[in-house]
């Protein structure tokens, strides 16, 4: 029993990072109807930039973290302007392929600059585990969990109460109507890419503090698809719930498969088996908007 409780707890922590990445994913999809297959690579780039600034350039962590965020804003703007804006109005498959191509380019750049070996962040938090309900957890995990929750609250408030958040919701709902009410659609697109890169970079820095980083970090993007589909592609709440659920699910399934069936590596595929089931039963996820078609 304790074994499974530990699995659930680890799943929640990993899941909170999935939620963060899923948040970036959902924001882009909500505002621009683009599914970003390069989300995992954005996480990786953020993690590496922050790593370079703290370790290689010797800048204090907080300052380099801020610089990473600034870099992410620029990166997001550049990607949107150079690659995504020409794709407005192109078929879905082309847009998907642009983001896939982008992901391989980003991955290649990271390998070119930083190589493929694992890099470890300096220890920011104490190593000794804290006991929660009798189970040991490293403080960095707790920090990660709290930070992701905090970000979610911030973004939910942003969408609910700020001008830009309102404009983004309006654009997501009906692009033409929003444009005719004086909302600059292109600015909204740029803003959503900025937010997505920033959120991903934060996720990357958190991950780097937990596990260290290597050039396979981009694989994380693949883990996020089941999470967003479970939650619904265009729902922020869905991203949060989906991320946590997938994190727990894959940890528990992996542990169960290991203990009961002696199957290793089930972690990588558990979420996808579940994804097929979700798609067959509830294609638009738990909180997603159902697309109704009428003639």
């Amino acid at each position, binding site marked *: 029993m304790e074994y499974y409780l530990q699995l659930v707890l680890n799943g929640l922590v990993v899941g909170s990072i999935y939620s963060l990445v899923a948040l970036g994913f959902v924001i882009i999809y909500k505002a621009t109807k683009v*599914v970003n297959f390069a989300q995992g690579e954005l996480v990786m780039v953020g993690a590496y930039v922050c790593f370079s600034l703290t370790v290689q350039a010797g800048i204090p962590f907080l300052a380099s973290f801020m610089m990473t965020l600034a870099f992410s804003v620029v990166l997001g703007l550049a990607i949107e302007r150079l*690659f995504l804006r*020409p*794709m407005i109005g*192109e*078929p*879905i*498959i*082309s847009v*998907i*392929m*642009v983001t*896939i*191509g*982008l*992901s*391989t*380019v980003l*991955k*290649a*750049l990271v*390998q*070119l600059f930083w190589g493929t070996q694992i890099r470890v962040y300096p220890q920011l938090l104490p190593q000794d585990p804290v006991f929660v309900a009798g189970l040991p957890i490293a403080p960095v995990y707790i920090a990660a969990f709290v930070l992701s929750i905090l970000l979610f609250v911030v973004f939910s408030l942003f969408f609910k109460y700020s001008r830009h958040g309102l404009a983004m919701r309006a654009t997501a709902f009906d692009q033409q109507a929003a444009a005719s009410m004086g909302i600059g659609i292109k600015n909204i697109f740029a803003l959503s890419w900025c937010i997505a890169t920033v959120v991903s970079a934060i996720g990357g820095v958190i991950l780097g503090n937990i596990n260290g980083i290597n050039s396979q970090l981009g694989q994380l993007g*693949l883990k996020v*698809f*089941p999470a967003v*589909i479970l939650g619904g*592609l265009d729902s922020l709440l869905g991203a949060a719930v989906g991320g946590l659920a997938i994190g727990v699910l894959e940890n528990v399934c992996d542990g169960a498969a290991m203990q009961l069936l002696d*199957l290793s*590596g*089930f972690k*990588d*595929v558990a979420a*996808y*088996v579940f*994804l*097929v089931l979700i*798609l*067959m039963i509830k*294609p*638009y996820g738990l909180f997603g908007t159902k697309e109704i*078609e009428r*003639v």
Partner: protein
Amino acid sequence: MSGKCGLFYTSYRAEAGLFPSRFQKACMAAFMAVLLICPWFLGSYPVSVLNLICIAVIGAVSLNLLTGVCGQISLGHGAFIGVGAYASAWFAGQGLPFAISLPLGGAVAAVIGMFFGIPSLRLKGIYLAIATLAAQLILEYVFLHWEGVTGGPYGLSVDSPVIFGLTLDTDRSMYYLILFCTVLSVLAAANVMRTRPGRAFVAIRDHHLSAEIVGVNLFAVKLQAFGLSSFMAGIAGGLWGHYTMYITPEPFGIGLSVSYLAMIIIGGLGSVLGSVFGAVFITLLPEGLNMVAGSLAGLFPNVSTYFLAMKEGVFGLILVLFLVFEPEGLARRWRLLKSYWKLYPFAY
């Protein structure tokens, strides 16, 4: 027809012909003749590259039927090719002759493809892409862990195919077998697009509601598209397995699915000729990059350390640039080139 500028059909049959003019027929015949005799003038390495190109053409044509013609995005095509490879290798390993095990491999791939095509009735666009992505990752896991059949990470060795008592164990003899299958698949795809199911595919891609209203059974036709496409993918996989004689799970990863999608996009969505162009381009790309890296190695000795990363990056960059600047692919460029010569010296 000769002597006129352009095509003037006098019957529907003439318009529906695969090669509308005598000139095109002659060009095609000449091209086939070159393909048939070229292995006798080439070394074994260029022939092996030709073999890989031909296999890629089968895969690209099959994916183009599903994604380009029917509009059902598949990110799992690499895995369907893998299913064909493993299945036909397994059947061959049970002692079945090659001529039976290859189509059986295709049939298994078709069944698996149709199973993962079932969600396509309710899912469109991006949701379907992610469902097929799930197929890709689940099948990869199966390749790696169903050790009784696939040999797990150690792989599965395959014997050379034997046809009419001839053992095809050289690049050149395999070339003729693969070329035969390739021509057959390209012709099959071109013909499917002219038939009733093929037009139903196009109708679904263009507007699925209208298609349903004019009486296309969406579910059946989508499943047909998945089945046909995966069958051909399975054949490509089977040929690949018998050609390389050793199968491991690695080549059938998501990278393969992406490069097949890249082929049909760079070539031209929905065009058979485009799939051929794309397959040739993407297969030759690493060869070209190898040559560039080889010539750069003298100038910058460190270039090979970064080469792998560069290769991936260049692939991605070319893909993105094509999508931004030439979204309709090489097939459109080819059409423009042809009409340029036809209309010369006028610019329209």
